[in-house]
Structures are given as structure tokens and as C-alpha cells.
């Protein structure tokens, strides 16, 4: 198993190196302080953490096993009395204190590239793919949310993406005990969340299930309702790092395959970018942007949600950002003027002159409904494309106070 190889005490360059690099005492070197502590420690003592056991290491198996083989068998620096040259190469860095916090079980082997299926977004309109929808009860949804919300593959999803992904989970009944849901070493295409029943997790040291009575290897963990396994399959096809087997006569899983998951993320990101680009094209201040510059800006926009009746921009505040209205409705009001001076809906924008300077806002913007805006700060704009003045110099921009009451 990869993590064993990677974590083995033998992974110590110095003991293997024939080159005359001064020895660095790695054994007593580190206090591991990373959040991944547990897996390092447990790996070091020979027992594997559940996380690592479930999903671990398969991508490194190849590199790991090569280590200690021919990699260090020959050194061009060996002999020939060029020790001086060699030492000159050694960085002045390490020393015990400098290395604190760095795991000392780093797998030194060559690393294999990984790759998922090629995915190309379909242009809006010609889109023939819609994500699968499998209806679920409110209760099921909230259980599923709880099961994955802390998982880094799901935690960054916006509400819409999250809903689409949860809708796409398909129920998979496991009708008997002792059914292998996934087998160590097999290709992995699905991620599973346990709805009902319990499952045991086995790892065979060879890296794959073997024939015969002990072919599953050692039981390393169990999981039950709310548990999940096989996440790596949502990224690319790596061999399963463990075998998962049902222990109840009847169980239920939710399954999600990689292509569906990645397509949902891709399609929503793609549509969001194209929508922002289209919105930006309508902003006269930015009309002189080249299309790749607009793409860059579209990429840098932050989506923010406001409930109804909240203030996005306060009249009199220094302007620091510009906004595109993605959904909902808002209105501009000015002190001393009764009623709204302008209404905004999808595709409208406001506050764009803040990209030029931090002059006070000339109006307030208040949401009338729930509103989603895309925000771009002046700093972010400058960082990406340089000062907006230079870009404006490409074309005259007519200030239109009527169009833009926020800045004047």
C-alpha cells in the first residue's frame, strides 16, 4: 500500500544516499504540527488512519514502490573527488529548527500524473445535457447536506450547485449482507453516502483484493448512516484504496458519479462566466476592454447575496467597488429626493466610477427583493488590468449622470 511505503521509516534519504551530503538527523527532527497530524502519526506507527485507509495513497503506489530502487543506485557525483562541488550544492537551509512542522515521511518517488475524462462545456442553447434529478424528501436532503458539507469537494459550492449535486445523487439499495460496494484496486467512478445500514472497510496490503478467504485483507474501520466513502473517484479514476462491504441484510446508499459531478460544476462555472462577460459588455466604462480582459474580470467577480431591503451602497461612503446585478431588483435613492431615482434589474450595474477613484457615493442602493450581485473592487481591477484610467484612454467615456446616479 502506498501510504505504508510512503510512511515507512526507511523513507529517509540520508540512509540511502551514497552521495556525501552531510547527514541531517531526521529521526528526532520534527514536531508535526500540521492538521494532517493524525495520519502522519498513525502511519508512522504502522496503523493507518481511517481517512488514509479509505482513500489513501493509491496515486502514489507506483512512485512509492520505485523508491529505493534504481533511483539512488547511481550518483554522477560519486567518487571522482568532486565532493566540494557537491557540498556547494547543498542548501544552507535545514537544521532541526528550520524544519519544524514538516512531515518527515515524504514519499520521494517519482510522481505519476493524473487525469480525468476530457470535459467540454456545451454552449448555452445547444445544451443537450441536463443533470439527473432524483427527488428526495426534505429530511433526506438535510441529512445529505450534513454528510458532505464539511467535505472540501462540496464546501465551496454555491447554493445552486449544491442543490443540483444533491438532486443528482441516486439511491442505491444494497439488498444483502456481504456485498462488496467497492473493491480495493478496482477503477473508481462513484462516491457514496450511507443512508441506512453499516459497512466494514478492509485493506489488503498488496493494494488489491486477493482471491481466497483472507483476500479482503485487514478490517480497518466501519461506517454507518451519514458516513461517506470513495471521494477520490469524484476527481479522477484512481484505483480504490479499500474494499467496502455491507454488514446488514438491507442497506441504502446514495451514489454520485464523477462525470455528473464534474459536469455540474463545469456547466455552472461556464454559464456564470459567460453571463458575467455578457453583463460586462454592456458597461460603457469598460467598453474599451478587450474580450480576454473582460474574461479576466468576469473571473475575478465575487458573488454576494443580499436579502430584501438591505443597503448595498450607502450615499456618502467612499466608493471602492462596482456591482453587477445578477438577479433580483434594487433601487437608487438620494437624500433629499423623494422616491427612487433609478431602478435596477438583472444585467444592470452600478457604482462603476469607483473603479476610477474613491469619491463618495452619490446615491444609496437598496434591494427590493432578494438580490445576487457580482462585485469587483477597485483594487482587484487594478491588480488584474492596471489602472482603469489607462484603459479608458483607449476610448472616450461619456459620463452619464442619468444612467449612473451613484457616481458623478
Amino acid at each position, binding site marked *: 500500500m502506498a501510504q505504508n511505503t510512503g510512511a515507512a521509516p526507511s523513507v529517509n534519504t540520508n540512509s540511502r544516499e551514497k552521495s556525501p551530503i552531510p547527514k541531517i538527523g531526521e529521526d528526532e527532527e520534527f514536531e508535526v504540527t500540521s492538521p494532517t497530524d493524525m495520519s502522519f502519526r498513525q502511519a508512522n506507527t504502522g496503523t493507518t488512519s481511517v481517512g*488514509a485507509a479509505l482513500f*489513501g495513497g493509491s496515486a502514489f503506489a507506483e512512485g512509492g514502490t520505485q523508491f529505493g530502487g534504481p533511483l539512488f543506485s547511481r550518483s554522477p557525483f560519486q567518487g571522482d573527488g568532486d565532493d566540494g562541488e557537491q557540498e556547494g550544492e547543498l542548501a544552507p537551509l535545514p537544521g532541526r529548527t528550520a524544519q519544524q512542522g514538516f512531515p518527515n515521511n515524504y514519499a520521494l518517488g517519482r510522481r505519476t500524473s493524473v487525469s480525468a475524462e476530457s470535459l467540454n462545456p456545451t454552449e448555452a442553447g445547444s445544451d443537450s445535457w441536463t443533470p439527473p434529478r432524483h427527488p428526495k424528501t426534505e429530511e433526506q436532503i438535510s441529512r445529505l447536506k450534513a454528510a458532505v458539507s464539511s467535505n472540501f469537494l462540496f464546501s465551496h459550492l454555491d447554493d445552486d450547485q449544491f442543490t443540483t449535486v444533491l438532486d443528482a445523487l441516486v439511491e442505491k439499495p444494497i439488498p444483502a449482507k456481504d456485498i462488496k460496494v467497492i473493491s480495493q484496486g478496482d477503477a473508481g467512478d462513484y462516491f457514496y453516502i450511507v443512508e441506512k445500514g453499516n459497512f466494514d472497510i478492509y485493506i489488503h496490503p498488496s493494494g488489491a483484493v486477493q482471491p481466497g478467504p483472507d483476500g479482503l485483507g485487514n478490517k480497518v474501520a466501519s461506517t454507518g448512516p451519514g458516513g461517506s466513502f470513495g471521494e477520490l473517484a469524484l476527481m479522477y479514476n484512481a484505483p480504490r484504496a479499500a474494499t467496502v462491504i455491507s454488514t446488514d441484510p438491507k442497506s441504502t446508499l446514495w451514489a454520485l458519479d464523477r462525470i455528473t459531478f464534474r459536469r455540474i460544476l463545469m456547466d455552472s462555472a461556464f454559464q456564470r462566466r459567460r453571463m458575467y462577460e455578457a453583463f460586462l459588455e454592456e458597461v460603457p466604462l469598460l467598453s474599451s476592454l478587450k474580450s480576454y480582459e473582460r474574461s479576466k474580470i468576469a473571473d475575478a467577480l465575487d458573488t454576494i447575496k443580499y436579502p430584501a431591503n438591505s443597503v448595498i451602497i450607502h450615499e456618502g461612503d467612499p466608493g471602492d467597488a462596482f456591482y453587477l446585478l445578477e438577479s433580483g431588483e434594487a433601487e437608487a435613492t438620494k437624500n433629499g429626493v423623494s422616491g427612487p431615482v433609478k431602478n435596477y434589474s438583472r444585467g444592470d450595474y452600478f457604482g462603476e466610477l469607483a473603479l476610477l477613484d474613491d469619491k463618495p457615493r452619490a446615491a444609496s442602493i437598496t434591494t427590493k427583493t432578494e438580490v445576487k450581485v457580482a462585485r469587483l473592487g477597485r483594487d482587484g481591477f487594478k491588480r488584474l488590468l492596471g489602472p482603469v484610467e489607462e484603459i479608458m484612454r483607449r476610448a472616450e467615456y461619456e459620463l452619464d449622470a442619468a444612467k449612473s446616479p451613484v457616481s458623478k
Partner: protein
Amino acid sequence: MSLHKHDLHARGKQLVESLRHSPRSNPFLITERQDEKQLCISSRTLRVNDFVLIKTLGTGTFARVWLTRLKDQKDKSKVYALKILRKADVIKLKQVEHVRNERKALAAVLDHPFITNLVASFSDEKSLYMLFKLDYCPGGEIFSYLRRQRRFSEETSRFYAAEITMTIEFLHDIHGIAYRDLKPENILLDADGHIKLVDFGFAKQVDNRETYTLCGTPEYLAPEVIHNSGHGLAVDWWALGILIYEFLIGQPPFWDSNPLRIYEQIVEGRLRFPANMPPAAQNIISLLCKTNPSERLGHISGGSTRVKSHPFFQNVIWDDLFYRRVKGPILPRLSHPADTSNFEEYPDPPDARHANIYTDDLKKKYEALFSDF
């Protein structure tokens, strides 16, 4: 008819030979050397039987690279690298699109001192072949030197990072190509200690658009690749940050025996530096490894120029590197031009009888996609 074929064949081989001594030209003048460009389009006359396969230089999941020379070549020092991809494997591993991109990218990026030049490509019933000039890179992988020395000095790291920076600049600014698999394993050393970037298996012309297919090497994947939110040229700048870190420290900043924990660390993006790491190095790594590509050095305004003018690269004379007026910090030990002792040993190819078969069905479906070769 057969005589005519024979002539063509001989001419193909002659062209391959003649390329070895063509002068190196400025890659920013892309109109030069039209002859090579044309040859590079694809050779209908070369066959794998024209070559002696001397030794494996590297293997991937679906490709193997051989040190090779032409059979009837008397000068034994004239060697090439021949990359062989089995069509059935390419299809099974769903890499058809990547292989096509690779062929296209390589044909576009000829004439750069730090990129291995594609000489010709050809194909037969079962396999695809790409032939590279190898006359200047017998030093093996930087990876091997790095692991052997554990870590590089700041000076050495700077030298390689500078050459990689120029290579990324060239790929991005001149060709709009994202390389997408930067790591020490893919950087070879030539006889003078300069770098050669190899393996364009994931290179793709993206220009200023985004692309979505996840690919790369776990420790070097950029956060936006993991999130599948669309990625572009900026991924190479992220990887450059990881690479400089690995040069200086001896291991990449985000690592765990479990790949998922690596990805978790990457998207979190919290870098930790040893206290005595040079501040300029810490700074450039922090700027390159910004999790938000809109804030990443190289991708933000100023582009690669901003990278090159960072204090970490202070005192680098870029032209001296580009025109190879200086030698690199590590000079490979070589006994002869075809010396392969700096490359690692690889096991022999698996028995062909157990390999995936390029069936007629596959052929019907995919053969047209391989017609570029």
C-alpha cells in the same frame, strides 16, 4: 511504385538526420525554419522499424519513451527520443484529446532552447510515435538530482526557476499554451546544465479562455483545477511556486500520503515556510501560490514580466540564460553523447499479449482522430 516509395522513405530519414545540425534560432521569430515545421506536421514514410530502440528513458501511464537511433545511421552518437503510445491504451485511458493536444502543442512550440523539439511524428496499425531531438539533454531529470541532493541552494533553484519562467512565458505569451504538468520529473538537464521541458501530454492551447478537464500531478494541481471551476494559463504560475518550494525545501508544500488530504491543503492554500528560508523566495512563492488566480503573480497585470522582475530573480541576466552564454549549476557527467546513465532504470515493457487490443470497433470510432500523426 515500390521504388518511388523507397525514395520517399529515404528522404524522410534524410530530413530527420539533417535536422540535427540546424542552427538554433530566436524562438520569438517564429517564421524561421519552415522546413522543420513542415516535417513536423507528420511523416507518412517513417516506420518504427527504421529505429533501434536502445533504452527506456521514461514511462507514463500509457506511453514509453525510448532512446533511439536510425538503424542505418553509422554515427552511433546521433540519438533521438522516441515516444510510443499504444492507440488502444490511449483510448482506454480516455486520453485521445490530450494526445491530440500534445501533438498540436509540440508542433507549435519548436525552436525554444528549453523545450525538446519534436522532429517528426508517425503512426502504424497499433501505435502513435513522436520523435524528438535528444542531442542536448543527456543529463537525465532534475528530479533525480534534487532527490539525491535533497534540496537545491537558492542559487541553483533560482537558475532553474528562471529558465522555467522563460519557458512558461514563451508558451503562454507566444502560443497561448498552458503546459499543465510542471514538476521536477518533467525537466531534463542538457550537457551544459540548462533545462529542457519534456512531456507535453497535458499541454493545451487555451489562449485566454478557460478549460475544465482535470489533469496534472497531485502535489502540483492548482486549486481551481481541483474545484473544476475552469482553469487557464494561471495554473502554470501556481505550479512554478510549488516547484520553487520543492527545489528549496526538498518536498512540495502540500503533501500527505492520502491524496485527498493534499487537495484539502491545496484549496486551503496555507503555506508554511521554514524560518530561515530567504524572504524573497518566501515572497515569490506566496505570490505565485495565491489560491485565487485573479490575485496570482504571472496572471495579474504585468504578466510574466512581473514574475521576472521579482526580487527573487534579482541579478538574473535573462539573455545569458536564453542564449546559453553561461553554464548551469549542475553539469551532468557524460562519457559520450548517447550516454543514458543519468536516466533512471525502467522495467521492460509489459508483455504485449496482455495489452489492450486496438479492435476494429475502436479503429472505426477513433482512427480519424489520430490522423494528425
